[in-house]
């Protein structure tokens, strides 16, 4: 099986109902078997190009095309059986309840003869290194296993063009690695042409031999071997948000406080003692015997593999979930009179002024229909004067570069904007402690840096940060202390001060 050949001549696309083109003036040739990494700032049309190559954009009702785009000389819609598209979210790519059935879904759609379907299923499962049998339930798979299953579903159709739209964006590092290995194996055994869109460039480099950079205003800005492209364009790419390899991240750890400055030791604002949590009816605990604390003026990172109970610990510390064992106590400095009661018994209104929580999906926390109202919600409820609230909101909008979006519906913002907004709304009630669950998930470099700066500012002003994360970047750039969890318990290595 050889790869398909892709050609674009002055190709452009405008989605129906939009005013500006998603892609414009694209001239590109990808030879059979070539492996291409597609980069570019947000809005440069990478996903649109992949969707078009997969034959999923219909000029009749989805938008307007200009120029020419072919796969093996055919219109992509006629060549749909030659291409396979892999998307970012594993949960919305799987269709069936059992793994084998899901891989068989594609062949069934393409009318592959019955007798051949299961042979292809088994071959595809083997090709991606799927560790379970055919009847494994898909909702019991980890993200990495689900993405590998999605890849198997694509490979079962023997594609000649493999299109990957950020396949590891939603995965933890282990899962991401396994998916990349599966892609590499497929490339080696079939010689399929690959077009990959991926933020984490450094890890994607082994999968590609060529880098193409799209320009936000149309056309291609750079095209060549990775070393050349990053050598020449590395800086502005990094500024535009691409995770260019070997570009260092800003250092934001706290300045070391010299011993004996005369002030008291840092206040422990929240202390969790021997905390455990088990879901009702479940035999195994998610957390057991975990002790941790959150200090003022410190950024704490909670790390560990998938399923280690990190998020559960964070929600317990944040007073959103009652532990089934052990307890959490807040210092009087944080809670005043309420210090006698554990955080999960505080009134929500009080909780929001003491501990702010930022969830992994910003949309879960939006309450209103306008960005401005979102920012005004917290202070408005605690009875501040309207004029003071308005001034604070304007100031925040300015600091977060969200002023032009002040009247937009929060749900219509881009991923990075939503993330900034959700952190900001958590900060509007002036909590001392900020708990965050995977705050840098899927962020480009620019948003990442803005976020780290925001968090560092909070910490430097005396607040406390507790971030649950897979992102080693946070650990090296921001965290002053790290707690490692493994299978619901503290890992054998105790809390370590992160040495400078």
């Amino acid at each position, binding site marked *: 099986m050889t790869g398909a050949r892709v050609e674009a001549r002055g190709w452009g696309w405008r989605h129906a*109902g939009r*005013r*500006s083109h998603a892609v414009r003036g694209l001239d590109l040739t990808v030879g059979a078997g070539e492996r291409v990494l597609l980069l570019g700032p947000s809005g440069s049309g990478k996903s649109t190009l992949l969707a078009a190559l997969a034959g999923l954009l219909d000029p009749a*009702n989805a938008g307007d095309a200009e120029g020419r785009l072919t796969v093996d000389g055919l219109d992509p819609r006629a060549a749909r059986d030659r291409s396979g598209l892999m998307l970012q979210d594993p949960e919305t790519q799987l269709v069936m309840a059992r793994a084998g059935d899901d891989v068989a879904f594609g062949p069934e759609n393409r009318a592959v003869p019955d007798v051949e379907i299961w042979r292809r299923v088994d071959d595809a499962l083997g090709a991606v290194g799927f560790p379970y049998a055919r009847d494994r339930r898909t909702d019991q798979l980890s993200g990495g296993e689900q993405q590998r299953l999605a890849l198997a579903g694509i490979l079962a159709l023997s594609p000649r063009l493999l299109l990957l739209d950020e396949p590891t964006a939603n995965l933890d590092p282990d899962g991401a690695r396994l998916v990349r290995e599966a892609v590499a194996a497929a490339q080696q055994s079939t010689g399929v042409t690959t077009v990959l869109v991926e933020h984490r460039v450094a890890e994607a480099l082994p999968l590609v031999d060529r880098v193409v950079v799209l320009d936000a*205003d149309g056309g291609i800005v750079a095209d060549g071997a990775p070393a050349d492209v990053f050598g020449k364009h590395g800086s502005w790419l990094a500024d535009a948000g691409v995770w260019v390899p070997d570009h260092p991240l800003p250092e934001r750890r706290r300045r070391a406080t010299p011993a004996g400055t005369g002030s008291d030791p840092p206040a422990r604002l929240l202390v969790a003692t021997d905390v455990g949590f088990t879901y009702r009816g479940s035999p195994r605990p998610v957390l057991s015997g975990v002790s941790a604390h959150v200090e003022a003026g410190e950024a704490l990172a909670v790390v560990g593999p998938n399923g280690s109970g990190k998020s559960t610990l964070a929600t317990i510390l944040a007073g959103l979930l009652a532990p089934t064992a052990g307890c959490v106590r807040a210092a009087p400095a944080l809670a005043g009179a309420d210090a006698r009661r554990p955080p999960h018994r505080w009134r929500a209104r009080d909780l929001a002024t003491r501990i702010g929580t930022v969830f992994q999906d910003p949309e879960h926390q939006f309450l209103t*229909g306008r960005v401005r109202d979102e920012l005004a919600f917290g202070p408005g409820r605690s009875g501040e004067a309207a004029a003071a609230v308005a001034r604070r909101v304007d100031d925040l909008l300015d600091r977060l570069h969200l002023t032009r*979006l002040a*009247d*937009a*519906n929060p*749900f*219509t913002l881009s991923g990075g904007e939503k993330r900034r907004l959700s952190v900001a709304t958590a900060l509007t009630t002036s909590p001392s402690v900020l708990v965050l669950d995977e705050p840098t998930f899927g962020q480009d470099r620019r948003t990442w840096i803005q976020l780290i700066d925001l968090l560092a500012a909070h910490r430097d002003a005396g607040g406390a940060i507790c971030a649950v994360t897979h992102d080693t970047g946070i650990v090296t750039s921001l965290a002053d202390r790290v707690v490692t969890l493994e299978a619901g318990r503290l890992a054998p290595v105790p809390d370590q001060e992160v040495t400078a």
Partner: protein
Amino acid sequence: MSQQQRPEVHRDEASVDAERATEPAASRYAWRTVDIVVAAVLAVAFGVVFWAWGNLWNTTVAGFTAFPPAQAFMYGVWLVPGVLTMLVVRKPGAAVFAMLLASTVSALLGTVWGPQVIWYGLIEGLAPELVFLLAMGYRRFGLPVALLAAAAAGVAAASLDWYYYYRTWSTGWLVSYFAILVASSVVIAGVGSWFLVRRLAATGALDAFPSGRERDRV
């Protein structure tokens, strides 16, 4: 180089309807994959909503469920999927499909009544479906039609309950039951659905649907 983006003026129902009237009939009535899947996901989401709604009332007032006239106040929630899905997807059969699937999910989750709720779902879906069909042949999706459709669903639900459970009730009780149920349906499944769809459209989530084209764009 970059175009100034003027906010699009809010388009009223009439202009959208005019545009739809000029669409070829095939694409106006044919179900795309996204229509089917989103209708299905909405219906399944209501499986969760029903479960949570049931929890909400089971814990607060235990005897509520045994006192039918009180139940009738809250009945509207069970009738939302049909009207809501039709308002979002706007394809023939949407109300029936959504109600059938939502009730099947309820049954699979283990409601007390088992598959009988599927039968209920079918009838409670057919009633609003007929309203959308008869009132201008699947062209009108504004508030008045939504209210009428919800009322029809309420009448269907009350009739089913009368047939299966309450045939021996006195006329007075029956009439009050009907009235409360239909009112609940009109408010929750009628106004509620219409309002929900407008707010959903404002988030941009409905951009793939005609119901989403009516939002302001920034």
